[in-house]
């Protein structure tokens, strides 16, 4: 049993952490927030060139075939750095191709995604609510897709998107070239402007079914969400850890009533609670990484649990980081808001948190019935 990253994975993590400290510090993220630049294509391409985006992609499709655990370690570091890159969205598209794409589709997209030359995303939400078939009105007929999707993450910049739409009354998944015909994108102001969101209107846009046959659809989408949730959980964990470090450092430095604020039990216990939530999230994330890597039958439960746990941890860490900082934290200039916003983005990116909780319980109930 070795329930931890390997020495090699840790070394890679360390390298990436140094690279991000140099190229993606919080001032960099802040400039994205201030609208000085959007999603960073340069950083993304740099990450691709250095091989950070392709570790789990098989070698035949331009990847490194190293499995998913290293990819999880990378997600952790990107989360820690609050990197404004289209990470989970592109990962989801790669997974979709690997899981259900045709050979031709795989060859066309996977290498470019792995190199960071292509940005992929996914468009499922149309209205408020969970990810559900009855809330999907987009329709695909004869290779043309029509409909309107909201809150498409990295949608202003993405090159290709996976779209959930109905064909013959059933939900299927389609690949759509976002530089093609019938596409209108409108940037949206989201809770986290360091992740660009867009409304995308599809008007008879050329759309290609994922895979040769109608093999796609709901089970594939559920599977993609579970697999991506593992990576998102690590990204959340990284953010939560960085927020805890920030709060701890401030609590040691800032003095009030003649002592560091971190000497008062109210603050000590608040920080201990963040630590506990983070450690629970880490353990659940590790288990999910193992389940993803081994394609275990426990993956659906493990992934949902990891995401639920990491959502709670990151929301708490981001919120209480502000509370530890006191008044200073609510200034626009202050970095606390970067975490506060990102925590919400990652909590909502893959659909309503309540739906993830329902998935945990449905899986537990199914395991009991089995």
């Amino acid at each position, binding site marked *: 049993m070795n329930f931890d990253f390997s020495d090699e994975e840790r070394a890679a993590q360390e390298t990436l952490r140094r690279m991000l400290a140099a190229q993606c510090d919080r001032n960099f993220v802040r400039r994205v927030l201030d609208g000085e630049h959007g999603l960073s294509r340069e950083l993304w391409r740099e990450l691709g060139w250095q091989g950070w985006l392709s570790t789990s992609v098989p070698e035949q499709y331009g990847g490194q075939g190293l499995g998913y655990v290293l990819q999880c370690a990378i997600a952790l570091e990107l989360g820690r750095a609050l990197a404004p890159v289209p990470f989970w969205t592109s990962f989801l598209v790669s997974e979709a191709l690997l899981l259900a794409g045709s050979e031709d589709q795989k060859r066309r997209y996977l290498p470019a995604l792995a190199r960071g030359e292509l940005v992929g995303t996914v468009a*499922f*939400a*149309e*209205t*408020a*609510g*969970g*990810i*559900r078939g*009855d*809330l999907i009105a987009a329709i695909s007929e004869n290779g043309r897709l029509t409909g309107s999707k*909201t*809150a498409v993450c990295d949608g202003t910049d993405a090159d290709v998107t996976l779209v959930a739409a109905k064909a013959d009354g059933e939900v299927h998944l389609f690949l759509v070239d976002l530089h093609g015909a019938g596409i209108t994108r409108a940037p*949206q*102001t*989201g*809770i*986290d402007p360091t992740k660009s*969101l867009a*409304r995308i209107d599809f008007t008879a846009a050329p759309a290609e079914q994922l895979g040769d046959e109608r093999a796609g659809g709901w089970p594939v989408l559920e599977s993609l969400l579970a697999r991506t949730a593992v990576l998102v959980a690590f990204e959340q964990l990284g953010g939560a850890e960085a927020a805890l470090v920030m709060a701890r450092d401030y609590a040691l430095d800032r*003095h*009030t*009533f*003649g*002592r560091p604020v971190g000497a*008062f039990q*109210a*603050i000590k216990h608040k920080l201990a609670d963040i630590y506990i939530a983070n450690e629970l999230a880490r353990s659940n994330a590790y288990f999910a990484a193992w389940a993803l890597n081994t394609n275990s039958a426990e993956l659906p439960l493990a992934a949902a649990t990891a995401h639920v746990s990491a959502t709670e941890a990151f*929301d708490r860490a981001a*919120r209480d980081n*502000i*509370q530890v900082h*006191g*008044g*200073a*934290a*609510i*200034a*626009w*200039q*202050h970095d*606390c*808001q970067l975490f*506060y916003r990102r925590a*919400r*983005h990652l*909590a*909502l*990116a*893959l*659909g*309503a*948190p*309540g*739906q993830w909780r*329902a998935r945990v319980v449905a899986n537990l109930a199914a395991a009991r019935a089995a």
Partner: protein
Amino acid sequence: MDFEDTQTEAAFRAEVRAWLAANAPRFVPAAEASEAERVKLMRAWTAEKAKAGYVGFTLPRELGGRGGSAVEEIIFVEEQARVAVPHIETFNLGPSVGIPVLMKHAHPEHVSRLAGPTLRGEVVWCQMFSEPGAGSDVAAIRTRAVRDGDEWVVNGQKVWTSGAHIADWGMLITRTNPAVPKHQGLTFFILDMKSPGVEVRPLKQMWGRSEFNEVFFTDVRIPDHQRLGDIDGGWQVVLTTLSNERLALIYDRTVGRNLVAPLLRLASHIPSPEGGSLVASSGFCDRLASYYAVVAGVDHIRKRISTSLSRNERPGAEATIGKMTLARVLQEMAAFGMDIAGTAGQVADADPDLAEIQESFFMSAGYRMGGGTEEIGKNIIAERVLGLPQDIRVDKNTPFQSPAGGR
């Protein structure tokens, strides 16, 4: 247990309502009015109220007050809330804190010179206490005042000053003696905000607005007669302001912001996986009912406070319960509102309810700090209401400028 007005109260309410109906409409700002226009309108509205005797309810008539009762004030505030007159919190500070402090600590000439204009909205006040290094621990401030003949020369910086950009006069706490323990070396002044060397810079908050300011002092000269209280005796004056500030909290509109209606509307548009809308789902009901119980509880606590005031009792620490609970649950429920909307909950563009929910998510983080953090508030309740011991204050007897005392 009675919510009805007494006969006297009912008569006064009718009088107020009639007066508001006749006069308020002229002061309703246009939707697109700029802040400057709102301030101008607020000054005019205050002057109008002063003419009719609806300001300074509990202040003596000779200062321009009404010489009336707290109950009248409550009734007026309740009725005024029904009309769309401008509301700028900063205008409350002078009447509710500034004048009482002047009356207790200032030279009578300042009282007679400033009270009237303050009640008429001609003089607006701000309070300059907090500094980058002194938030909960106000006595840790570093802004220096050094005596020079009949004047004091002030250098330093304040922060989180509401309304400094529209204020005419300010209340200022400074350090005049760093060689003694921190509470013993402070001196309190009132200050004309147009004095040379005062610079007010707006401070943008994470929700994009600038409700607070930083204020910088560079060789600002204040005549000694604008000192309130003794030299190095400013902490006593601060305590006077804080005790009046807590009373002012009762009227605080910001804690009145709640998400019950936006959440109900939002949920009513989201179909539940169990059929119907989310409004009937147990997950939504569990959260909203607990939330509503806090909102309603605080609302009723205000009524209990009004009852105390009408009996001429001073409300106790329960006046802070609203501040200490609503902001935290507002933050939680704002996150919950986004949660039920799911991925689309990130975007507020098209939906006014989601917009209010998102704005509340950020503003609640600020409310949790305003007027002292929740941690400080709980200490106050534990000590003053429950009689538990005070925290150990290691710096109580340490000179401010020593390594341990100054931070």
